């Protein structure tokens, strides 16, 4: 108990006596953690974006108005039998009209034009969702080759290409992010190493005397490890108090971008709070402690 209190006291003295060095150490740790969390955020957003776009990848086959129920259902079964088909949705003439009305209910001119027309101008259709959007091109080929009298036209939206693009862009962002994280992490380790080096230098008399009077090795080393832990702890506390306001600022932009989809980056980080920041703390503390230990080994002769 005594020993623990004394180690804490020495560690507090280390930190206080080199205040600016401690500030620099904590700053670089915060920057590192910030870059890591930014990467995590980008990851969450891009995963969501891909999900959203994937949901939008669907193909439609428009049918002739006079096509009979039986023929349509046969075609539906046939398409369901194709490779990579998740579902086939039959939208009848009436349903199509209803959808069209709902969509344009605020557009008086369109509604007026419909009424003047006096009949349903829309075609029934089959909407096809692919299982795997990345393999959608093959499905498009199969649908193009589909031969049936009742098919009036086909519509293959190009969202699959967008998914590929988003995948590609996030891949690039991840690469760049990884590079930034590595640079920041290495800088952190170097800064911590040098902080300990300077701390040892400013405490060289104490350390010399400690060794002379028979302080055990662990007692000389422990305060440095405790300081490393305190630095990491402060950095984690700072990053949580910086990062959540940052996410709150980001959230409205995301909501605009993902209109109609439920994406909440703030609650994602809140729900995974202990996991994200716990793992970050453990990893940072481990790295900081290792860097300190290396410096102590090298410069304090214990």
């Amino acid at each position, binding site marked *: 108990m*005594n020993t623990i209190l004394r180690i804490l006291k020495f560690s507090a003295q280390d930190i206080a006596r080199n205040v600016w060095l401690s500030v620099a150490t904590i700053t670089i740790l915060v920057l590192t953690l910030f870059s890591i969390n930014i990467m995590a955020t980008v990851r969450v957003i891009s995963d969501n974006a891909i999900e959203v776009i994937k949901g939008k990848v669907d193909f439609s086959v428009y049918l002739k108005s006079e096509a009979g129920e039986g023929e349509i259902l046969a075609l539906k079964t046939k398409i369901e039998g194709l490779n990579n088909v998740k579902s086939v949705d039959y939208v009848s003439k009436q349903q199509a009209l209803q959808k069209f009305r709902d969509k344009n209910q605020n557009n008086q001119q369109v509604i007026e034009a419909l009424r003047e027309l006096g009949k349903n101008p829309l075609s029934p259709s089959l909407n096809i969702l692919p299982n795997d959007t990345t393999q959608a091109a093959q499905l498009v080929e199969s649908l193009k080759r589909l031969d049936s009298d009742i098919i009036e036209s086909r519509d293959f939206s190009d969202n699959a290409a967008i998914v590929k693009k988003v995948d590609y862009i996030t891949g690039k962002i991840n690469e760049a992010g990884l590079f930034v994280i590595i640079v920041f992490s290495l800088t952190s380790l170097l800064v911590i190493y040098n902080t300990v080096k300077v701390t040892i230098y400013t405490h060289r008399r*104490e350390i*010399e*005397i400690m060794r*002379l*009077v*028979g302080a*055990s090795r662990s007692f*000389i080393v422990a305060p440095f490890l405790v300081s490393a832990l305190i630095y990491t702890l402060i950095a984690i506390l700072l990053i949580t108090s910086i990062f959540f306001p940052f996410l709150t600022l980001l959230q409205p932009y995301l909501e605009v971008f993902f209109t109609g989809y439920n994406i909440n980056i703030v609650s994602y980080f809140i729900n995974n709070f202990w996991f994200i920041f716990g793992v970050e703390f453990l990893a940072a503390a481990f790295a900081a402690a290792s860097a300190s230990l290396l410096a102590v080994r090298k410069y304090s002769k214990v």
Partner: protein
Amino acid sequence: MIHLKNICKTYSHRTKVLRDLNLNIHPGEFVSIVGQSGAGKTTLVKILIGEERVDSGQVEIGGWDITRLSRREVPYLRRQIGVIFQDFKLLPKKTLAENIAFALEVSGGTNAKIKSIVPSVLKIVGLEDKADRYPTEISGGEAQRAAIARALVHQPKILLADEPTGNLDTINADEIIDLLLRINRFGTTVILVTHNREIVNRLNRRVVAMERGEIISDQEHGKYVL
């Protein structure tokens, strides 16, 4: 108490600092070690406190073979040997009492032990009324006495003094030597490394003279030779 058998020591490839040195010191002795600068006296002290290792030979202290002492064991050796130097090695931002308490704090002394030992060692060196002074507020002689008080906190069987009077005038130096003699009378083995001819001659105790890493004379009631 101390047995050195054929010890040799070389720092990084250069000439031997200690050559085949043999020395036996019995419990309760007061031994002065003299010799010119570079003779290897401090190196000998460093070997005795486990700061340096010998290249060959054997080092035994109080029945403990420390020839190949591991780093982990060094602190235990240091708690059995008090050591003082020419430059006192006091921490300027701590009072004398705090300086002495520090030695116990860092080597696992309990609070109760600190409370009882600090005043008692201050009393031995006659500094009980200056316990709360800072090292900058006392004389060199007093600083060395404080350093001696700190060296005594573990009640060592051996006290090593490497030129303890090097920075002091004659009066203060004599006071320190008297203090070392008093500590010796309590039964502590004292090894005094010094350049001071008058001190050695006045002591009239065992004198070991070194030259270029060898012992050139060892007299029971010696004078300062060289």
